[in-house]
């Protein structure tokens, strides 16, 4: 057996079935209960079914791409997968809904894939067991259509007991065989418990009933008779249940069709509304832009007029001064009394204050924003990118710009001073990169903006969906061109996508799981390719350099971003990992 490394740090686990409304949900739930009871019986674990998305183990039937980066492949080949214990999706077991599942385990129906066997295997992963190379083990990677009958092969039993210990209560004939004896071996052979019966038999205790061993033959016959009777009853019940479920299924299918129809209509309506909103938004933006242009033109015209006025007044003043001088000279020369001239008025040159000063005076929010200005040497980064061979770092509504001579003075400054077509109420950008056409692409929430230099390209912003990204995606974490193959990658939470640079859309077979970028982790803040060709990933105050050849981070511990990227001085007690 192989222990994956992770285990649950509690023994009372909860589970929940996600697809409560699927046709065979009831049977699937029963079989999951039975599979769990097998693991439960051989360890200290206990399981409780709950109806909650917070359960430790979520059982899901899904097809193809289902949001975890490990897509299913239709009927055959991959049947299911599960995640090892941890928070979030850890412990969850996913089954390929395209398989032909046989939920009638225990009967003679051999059509389809035995769901009980597969569930038993996947739940082994959910508890921390990896694949075993023992072909008799439940945890063998390849599907085997064998009757498990609730017994756990030694290999799996040893594995689960190493993780969670064995059940202390060892009454009954099926206690773990840690020190096998003749008696227990005999008991094991004759009293095989079936998976379709409850795994515990508290009523049976050989130590309290010594006559049991002596009357064994009679008891076995009796047991056989009882078993057959139970089997017959159970088959009858199952037949009735099947009929009932068939009716329910038909009813549900009808309801499902109606619901789908309604959903389709609703979707269509929403789509139309969205398109209408987009059109309106475009019109609004166009109008805003026109207004801004008009305003700028007005400002320029006013400034020109002010300049002309100022020059005219200066000229007049100069002429007046010259006339006065001439009169004064004449007076001195000829003793003529000079006419009284009105005192000259001085015109001040109109001030041209920089934009930020005007904003500072006019915008009440500006002071508030100034307070939120991030600390250059103690901040995480929302986005980072090389743009026109200079490094741009984004945080909140601000950016820093780092050129050949280092950090430009006067930064951080507002992002909208550079790209004014970004939303007025911009609080942060999610990701930025320069594409192969030299355009600058900003990702903000569910939309992306493409700029040619500082001018927004026509038709933008567009929704992320237009790139082929899922409509449920709320944001992009990072966007970068990977130096290894010059492909563009987008990441969000646990997934990443590759963009086809010709079409600008997501390539097929994506998303994939972020774990492929080994050591980087999930939910990163930013990533980019630096001028040294290397790719760097950022999270919180640290960063990792990525080793493309080994396809993993060059250093397991993140390094502090500020000293490298912002040229901040190191603290007196801070040293590099290598030096440490």
């Amino acid at each position, binding site marked *: 057996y192989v222990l994956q490394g992770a285990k649950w740090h509690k023994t009372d686990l909860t589970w929940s079935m996600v697809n409560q409304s699927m046709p065979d949900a009831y049977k699937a739930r029963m079989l999951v209960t039975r599979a769990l009871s097998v693991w439960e019986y051989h360890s200290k674990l206990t399981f409780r079914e709950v109806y909650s998305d917070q359960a430790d183990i979520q059982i899901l039937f899904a097809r193809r791409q289902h949001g975890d980066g490990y897509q299913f492949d239709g009927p055959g080949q991959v*049947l299911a997968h*599960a995640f090892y214990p941890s*928070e979030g*999706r850890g412990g969850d077991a996913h089954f390929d809904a395209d398989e032909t599942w046989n939920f009638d385990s225990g009967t003679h129906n051999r059509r389809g894939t035995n769901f009980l066997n597969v569930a038993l295997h996947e739940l082994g992963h959910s508890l921390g067991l990896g694949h075993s*190379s023992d*072909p008799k083990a439940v945890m063998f990677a390849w599907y085997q259509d064998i009757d498990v009958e609730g017994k756990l092969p030694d290999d799996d039993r040893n594995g689960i007991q190493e993780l969670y210990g064995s059940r202390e209560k060892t009454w009954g004939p099926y206690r773990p065989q840690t020190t096998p004896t003749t008696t227990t071996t005999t008991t094991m052979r004759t009293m095989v418990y079936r998976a379709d019966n409850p795994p515990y038999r508290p009523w049976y205790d050989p130590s309290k009933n010594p006559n049991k061993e002596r009357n064994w033959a009679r008891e076995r016959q009796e047991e056989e008779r009882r078993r057959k009777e139970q089997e017959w009853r159970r088959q009858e019940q199952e037949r009735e249940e099947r009929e009932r479920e068939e009716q329910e299924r038909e009813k549900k299918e009808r309801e499902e069709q109606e619901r789908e129809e309604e959903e389709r209509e609703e979707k269509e309506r929403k789509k139309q509304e969205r398109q209408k909103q987009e059109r309106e938004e475009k019109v609004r933006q166009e109008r805003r832009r026109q207004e801004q242009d008009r305003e700028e033109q007005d400002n320029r015209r006013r400034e020109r007029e002010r300049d002309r006025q100022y020059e005219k007044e200066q000229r007049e003043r100069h002429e007046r001064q010259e006339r006065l001088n001439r009169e004064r000279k004449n007076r001195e020369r000829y003793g003529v009394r000079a006419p009284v001239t009105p005192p000259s008025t001085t015109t001040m040159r109109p001030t041209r204050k920089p934009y930020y000063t005007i904003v500072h005076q006019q915008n009440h929010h500006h002071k508030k924003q100034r307070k939120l200005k991030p600390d250059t040497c103690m901040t995480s980064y929302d986005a980072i990118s090389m743009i026109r061979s200079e490094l741009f770092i984004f945080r909140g509504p601000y950016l820093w710009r780092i050129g050949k001579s280092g950090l430009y003075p006067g930064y951080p400054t507002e992002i909208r001073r550079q790209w004014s077509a970004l939303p007025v109420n911009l609080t942060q950008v999610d990701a930025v990169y320069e594409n192969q056409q030299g355009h600058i692409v900003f990702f903000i929430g569910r939309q992306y903006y493409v700029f040619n230099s500082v001018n927004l390209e026509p038709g933008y912003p567009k929704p992320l969906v237009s790139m082929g990204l899922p409509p449920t995606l709320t944001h992009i974490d990072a966007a970068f061109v990977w130096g290894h193959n010059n492909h563009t990658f987008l990441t969000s939470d646990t997934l990443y996508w590759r963009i086809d640079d010709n079409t600008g859309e997501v390539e097929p077979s994506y998303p994939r799981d972020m*774990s492929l970028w*080994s050591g980087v982790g999930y939910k990163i803040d930013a990533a980019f390719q630096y001028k040294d060709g290397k790719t760097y990933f950022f999270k919180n105050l640290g960063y990792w350099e990525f080793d493309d050849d080994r396809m993993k981070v060059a250093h397991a511990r993140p390094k502090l971003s500020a000293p490298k990227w912002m040229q901040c001085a190191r603290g007196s007690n801070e040293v590099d990992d290598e030096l440490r």
Partner: protein
Amino acid sequence: ATKPKASISEDIVYNYLMQFDYLPKSDLETGALRTEEQLKDAIRSLQSFGNIPVTGQIDSATARLIQKPRCGVGDHKSANSFSADNLYHDIGPHVRVRR
């Protein structure tokens, strides 16, 4: 002439080996080319794990094994496969326990 003809393309085998951790998953992105010896080693490892004769060749038993339905979780524990979160940086590499 006596070698059994594999009924499965090398591409499928290559993808299978990457998908189930016999070759680095990163090859999916990097498109790294592996030497013949590396491929043979990976096939041997698969054959050993699948409990079929270890030949290092894509023989009929290997082709059958590859086409068999199976679990989607990789066969060798690695940080890449199905770890729900990358929580292990601070505690160092995983300790692999095998009986």
